[in-house]
């Protein structure tokens, strides 16, 4: 048995009113990749914050034994000096600064107050090569994509002499290709003797990369599963995460009645708002019937969100060609989301915190926002009616909250997603475009979102579901469009589609950029 590098013993962390961690134990061997899995709010991030000194010694109970000695970290600097480096889910890079400047931020090269720029850039370049990033360290961070930014974060960690690297959801904003490259990079580091802890929701990644898997649930460690052969079954992990056997991750649609074509776009071409010569959506045609769930599968950057937002009252880019038919009638929407809502189209954003919800307002205010006029008379809001509406949707969607007066910012990701859906359901649309409706939410909440989608289709609504999770697209859709490099490159009936046929359609079309 290899040497135990890190042991966290009986860690208990209490926040006012909540026990976030309850007697957690974690053992990490030297040179392994250890995955930490669990639903949102299970306590994974809290545990890592305890380890890295964000929650200083004394604010929790229990011991951290690292490299044979008991550690009492008071700040993040303390843990970093021992070689424990954490890379957070939200990238912490300054966009306006160069890669090199970012890598040595707070850890500048040079003597006293004078920064030695030559050393900074030479060393930064060295680490960039180690993570396989072919960029000069003098390039500004804002000029490289998210995938490369993630690599910069790792290079930054290496520059701090990391011995134990903690990656919190490193692939959550990466496309499949970049994710795979990152995971392979991790495997490379392992060969060189680095120890890593990875937190992720993507179970296929866990099974691919991790040697051991520790499952956290409700603030306690449930079990540690051995995965030395990298062949663990995803359902086996899920069982530990939710505490019961999930026989079906996707609810069955019953009583499928597919009607007439509800919305049809043809020849849809959209140009980038800042670089008008770039086509972000190129001659796209698609339709959706009443009561139908249509999946649009594509990697990030394929133009899916841009397509959806441009249909939604041209809220993105410049439309240069294309027609939109609703119920067989051609309509020309004004360049405003208001007009799209009036024509019964809803766009449920992929970025619920960024442009979906008003986090500083209550569930009630968020629920009524897109259809405030329906509960108002002469511009005066009927507040009692508003409360009632919010309550209705809270019950219907099983949103977990003490009250609809609760601020949305205080809810978990899954419940926020439900509030976002409630807002658009209350707007009474005929066509709903759901952009990554289950991103970043846990297995239980995903199942509930799928049920809502099925209910919407049952009511005769047309649902377009954009997703980069293949199993989800395959299981939920009646028909699937495949999008790549701004174009639709394939259309399949769900029963004919397989993971292989979809990936083949993408590969055949070639990567555009």
């Amino acid at each position, binding site marked *: 048995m290899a040497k135990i590098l890190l042991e966290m013993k009986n860690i208990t962390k209490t926040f006012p009113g909540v026990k976030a961690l309850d007697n957690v134990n974690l053992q990490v061997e030297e040179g392994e990749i250890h995955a930490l899995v669990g639903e949102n709010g299970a306590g994974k991030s809290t545990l890592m914050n305890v380890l890295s000194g964000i929650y200083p010694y004394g604010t929790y109970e229990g011991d951290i034994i690292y490299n044979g000695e008991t550690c009492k970290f008071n700040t993040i600097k303390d843990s970093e000096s021992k070689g424990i480096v954490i890379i957070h889910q939200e990238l912490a890079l300054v966009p306006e600064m160069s890669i090199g400047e970012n890598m040595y931020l707070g850890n500048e090269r040079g003597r006293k107050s004078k920064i030695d720029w030559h050393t900074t850039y030479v060393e930064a370049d060295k680490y960039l090569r180690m993570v396989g990033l072919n960029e000069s360290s003098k390039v500004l961070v804002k000029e490289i994509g998210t995938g490369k930014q993630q690599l910069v974060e790792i290079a930054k960690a290496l520059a701090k002499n990391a011995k134990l690297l903690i990656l919190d959801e490193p692939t959550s904003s990466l496309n499949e290709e970049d994710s795979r490259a990152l995971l392979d990079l991790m495997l490379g580091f392992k060969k060189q003797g680095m120890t890593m802890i990875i937190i992720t929701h993507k179970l296929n990644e866990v099974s691919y990369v991790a040697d051991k898997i520790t499952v956290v649930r409700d603030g306690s460690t449930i079990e540690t599963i051995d995965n030395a052969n990298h062949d663990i079954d995803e359902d086996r992990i899920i069982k530990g995460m939710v505490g019961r056997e999930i026989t079906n991750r996707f609810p069955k649609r019953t009583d499928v009645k597919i009607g007439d074509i509800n919305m049809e776009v043809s020849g849809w071409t959209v140009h980038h708002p800042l670089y008008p010569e770039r086509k972000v959506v190129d001659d796209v045609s698609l339709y959706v019937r009443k009561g139908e769930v249509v999946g649009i599968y594509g990697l990030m950057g394929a133009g899916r969100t841009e397509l959806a937002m441009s249909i*939604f009252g041209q*809220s993105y880019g410049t439309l240069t060609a294309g027609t939109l038919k609703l119920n067989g009638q051609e309509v020309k929407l004004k360049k*405003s*989301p*208001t007009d*799209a*809502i009036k024509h019964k189209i809803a*766009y449920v*954003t992929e970025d619920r915190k*960024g*442009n*979906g*919800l*008003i*986090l*500083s*307002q209550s569930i009630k*205010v968020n629920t009524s*926002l*897109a259809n*405030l*006029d329906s509960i*108002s008379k002469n*511009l*005066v*809001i009927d*507040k*009692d009616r508003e*409360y*009632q509406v919010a309550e209705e949707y809270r019950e219907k969607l099983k949103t977990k909250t*003490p*009250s609809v*007066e609760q601020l949305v910012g205080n809810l978990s990701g899954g419940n926020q997603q439900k509030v976002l859906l409630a*807002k658009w359901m209350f707007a009474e649309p005929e066509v709903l475009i759901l952009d990554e409706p289950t991103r970043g939410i846990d297995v239980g909440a995903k199942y509930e979102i799928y049920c809502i989608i099925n209910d919407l289709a049952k009511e005769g609504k047309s649902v377009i579901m954009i997703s980069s999770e293949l199993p989800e697209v395959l299981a939920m859709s009646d028909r699937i469009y495949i999008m790549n490099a701004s174009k639709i490159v394939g259309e399949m009936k769900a029963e004919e589609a397989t993971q292989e046929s979809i990936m083949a359609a993408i590969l055949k079309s070639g990567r555009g950029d």
Partner: protein
Amino acid sequence: MKKNFSQVLKDNTMIIVLVLVYLFFTWQTGGSMFSPLNFNALITQNAYVFILACGMLMCMLTGGNIDLSCGSFVCFLGAIGGYLMVVKNLSTGISIVLMLVVGIIYGVVLGYLVAYMNIPPWIATLAGYLAFRGIGTDILSSNSSTGSISVKNMESFLNIFSGKLLSTKLNNLNIPCMAVGVIAAVIVILANLIGRANKVRKGYEADSAASVLLKSVIEAAVILLVMYKLAMGGGIPTVLVWVVVVVLFYSFITEKTTIGRHFYVVGGNREAARLSGVNTRRIMFLAYLNMAIITVITTWTVLARFQAANSTAGTNYEMDAISACVVGGVSAYGGSGRIFGMVVGATLIGVINLGMSLMNIDANFQKVVKGVVLLGAVAFDILSKRRAK
């Protein structure tokens, strides 16, 4: 959600602080702070803050945006008013309308710059802050040797915006004034009770009868106390009517209407508001158009109170309005804040000002105290929110 006692205390911290500070000054000044005369002074001296801060609050709601130009605009517009009435001899009615037109033109231009040209509000209004003081002073000095235009003889103008309604002699109980107070108190009590009865009838969650009753009694008592003081002080200051109308109008807009709701959501998350069908540019435009109109109303009352247009008129008014909002719990980042909170904040600052003046505290030291109060209020707000998390 039933509210417990400590929650009620927490929600009303600022009011409690206001009462304590008022009592403190009453004690320190040997009761003079509470005299009808000073009560009257408190209202007339601070009327401009209440009115101006209503407009400032609407701007701040949209995302912590402010208007730095309003103080200078008061000076500029006052000069125009004086010029029209005194130099050009125009009637009061026409002068008032022309002033309003000038304000609306400025509001439209400013709103366009901020909403449609995306010029940061503090820069767009910084330009006005500098320019209007200059133009105003120039108008005054080229039309008057003293650099000030007196409107002392414009009786009809003064009567609309200053003086007293239902006027009687000092320290005699003014019966009509008291009657107005009783009517107002009854209206408030009835509104509370009917509101609750409606909720119960429709089967919605309502506060307990006892708490509604207690709230009504306190509100009625405050109204009666204020009106009693005014009745002893010789009548209702005309400007108070303007203040009450403006404040009630904006509480209605912010709390009950869709347009008011749109101000909050634009400040809460502009992009989410836009994608939910809110015309965010129009809201920004309205915020600054509205601010200009509010500034016009402020100018009328200020011109009438000082009975002259001066080049120093309106100095630091923008800062007073911002302070009132911030002390009253309006978020400096936008998206939250209530008119009622702002009124409490403005009153608190007014009480501290008047109290310190009555105690003959050095003017420079008064500024220090005001700065500390402002910082303290914001720090308290941030700390209490942090603890709530």
